C-alpha cells in the first residue's frame, strides 16, 4: 500500500515537471507567443527600426537626362524661378568638384571628373541641420529621414549654414508664383521657409518608391532600408565599392554613390 502511493506520487511529479518544461521551453526563453501577435497597422512607428537610404549608381546614369529631378520637382510642387539666385533644389546635378570636393581618390579619369553628379539631401544619421534648427522645424524622423515641419520653420536659415552639402533652399519669394504645373497631391511652401528633399516620405506612407527612383529609366537609384541586411541596397553596398559625400565630417550620410 505504502509503495503504491509512493509510485503514484513519483509518476505524477515527473509528469508535472515534464509539462512545466514543455511550457517553459516555449514561453520563458524566447517569448515566442507574444511575438506572433501582428499589429493591425503602424499607429506608432518604432523609432530607429528603419533607416531609409539611397544608392546612386552613376555608371548607369545618362548625361543630360533630367527625368528624376523633373519627376521629383513636379511631385512636390517645387518652384522654378528660372534664376540661379532664387533656385529651389530638391534633387539636382552638379560637377565632380562640387559634389565630391574632398574625395580621397587622386588621378581619377577625365570622364569621371567631367561628368555631372546627382545630389540631394543626404538624410545624415548625424545631421548637423537638425542640431542647428532653433525651433525643431527640421528634425530626425523615426525612420532616419531628416524631415521638415514647414509649420514651424521661422526662416532663420541656420540649417542652411549648417548643412555641408547645400541641400537646403530658401524661399525668398512666394513659391506659388513659380510653380508651372501644380499638383494637388502635395502642399506648396510659402515665402520665408526653407525646403529640401523629404526622401518622398509622402509616397512612402502610401507604400510607393520615391518619385526619382520610380522615374529613372536606367535604375540608377536604389532605395531601401539600410538597417535590413537583406534589402537590395544593403546587398549592393556589400558587393560594390561605394562612396559618400564628405564622409570625413562624420555626418554619416544615408546617400551612397558608385562612380
Amino acid at each position, binding site marked *: 500500500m505504502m509503495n503504491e502511493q509512493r509510485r503514484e506520487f513519483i509518476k505524477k511529479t515527473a509528469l508535472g515537471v515534464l*509539462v512545466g518544461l514543455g511550457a517553459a521551453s516555449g514561453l520563458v526563453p524566447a517569448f*515566442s507567443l507574444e511575438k506572433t501577435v501582428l499589429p493591425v497597422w503602424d499607429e506608432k512607428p518604432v523609432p530607429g527600426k528603419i533607416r531609409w537610404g539611397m544608392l546612386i549608381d552613376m555608371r548607369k546614369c545618362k548625361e543630360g537626362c533630367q527625368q528624376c529631378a523633373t519627376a521629383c520637382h513636379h511631385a512636390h510642387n517645387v518652384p522654378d524661378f528660372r534664376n540661379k539666385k532664387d533656385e529651389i533644389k530638391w534633387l539636382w546635378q552638379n560637377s565632380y568638384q562640387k559634389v565630391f570636393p574632398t574625395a580621397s581618390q587622386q588621378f581619377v579619369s577625365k570622364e569621371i571628373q567631367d561628368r555631372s553628379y546627382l545630389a540631394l539631401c543626404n538624410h545624415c544619421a548625424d545631421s548637423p541641420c537638425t542640431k542647428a534648427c532653433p525651433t525643431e522645424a527640421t528634425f530626425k524622423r*523615426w525612420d532616419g529621414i531628416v524631415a521638415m515641419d514647414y509649420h514651424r520653420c521661422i526662416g532663420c536659415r541656420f540649417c542652411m549654414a549648417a548643412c555641408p552639402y547645400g541641400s537646403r533652399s530658401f524661399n525668398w519669394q512666394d513659391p506659388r508664383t513659380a510653380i508651372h504645373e501644380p499638383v*494637388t497631391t502635395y502642399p506648396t511652401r*510659402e515665402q520665408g521657409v526653407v525646403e529640401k528633399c523629404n526622401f518622398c516620405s509622402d509616397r512612402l*506612407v502610401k507604400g510607393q518608391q520615391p518619385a526619382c527612383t520610380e522615374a529613372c529609366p536606367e535604375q540608377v537609384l536604389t532605395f531601401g532600408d539600410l538597417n*535590413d541586411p537583406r534589402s537590395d541596397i544593403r546587398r549592393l553596398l556589400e558587393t560594390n565599392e561605394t562612396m559618400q559625400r564628405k564622409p570625413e565630417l562624420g555626418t554619416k550620410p544615408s546617400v551612397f554613390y558608385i562612380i
Partner: protein
Amino acid sequence: MMSKKLIWIFAVTAIMLFAVLNVFRKGEAETPPPLSVHKSVAIDSTKCIAPASFMRANHMQVLYEWRNSSVRTGNRVYIASNGSKYEKSLNTCLGCHSNNRMFCFNCHSYANVKPKCWNCHLSPMETP
C-alpha cells in the same frame, strides 16, 4: 484505472504543448523583416469625425493635434470616440467638405480670423 488514463492525458498534452511552442519559435526565426513599412489602412471618410457642434468649437485643436502627431511622430491614424478610424490629414476634412467652396471661409471671415493653412495647403476654393 483512472489515474493511468489521467497520466496519459497529461503526457500527450505536455508533448503537444512542447511541439506547438517549438513550431512557433522556428516560424519566428524564419519570418523575414517586412520590406514595406506601410500597411494598408481602411480609412472611413464618409462620416464626420465628431458632431458639428464639437467641430465648430474645437477644430483648431483637432487640426493642431493631427498636424503634430502625423508630421512629427508618424502616428497618422485617428480613432474617433465611436471607434472608426480616419487618416490625420486636412484632406480627410476636405474630402467631404470640398463640395462647399465657402467651407472654412464663411465663418473665418465672420469671426475675422486669418489662419495660414492656405498659404501652403490647397483650400476648398482651389480644389478642382
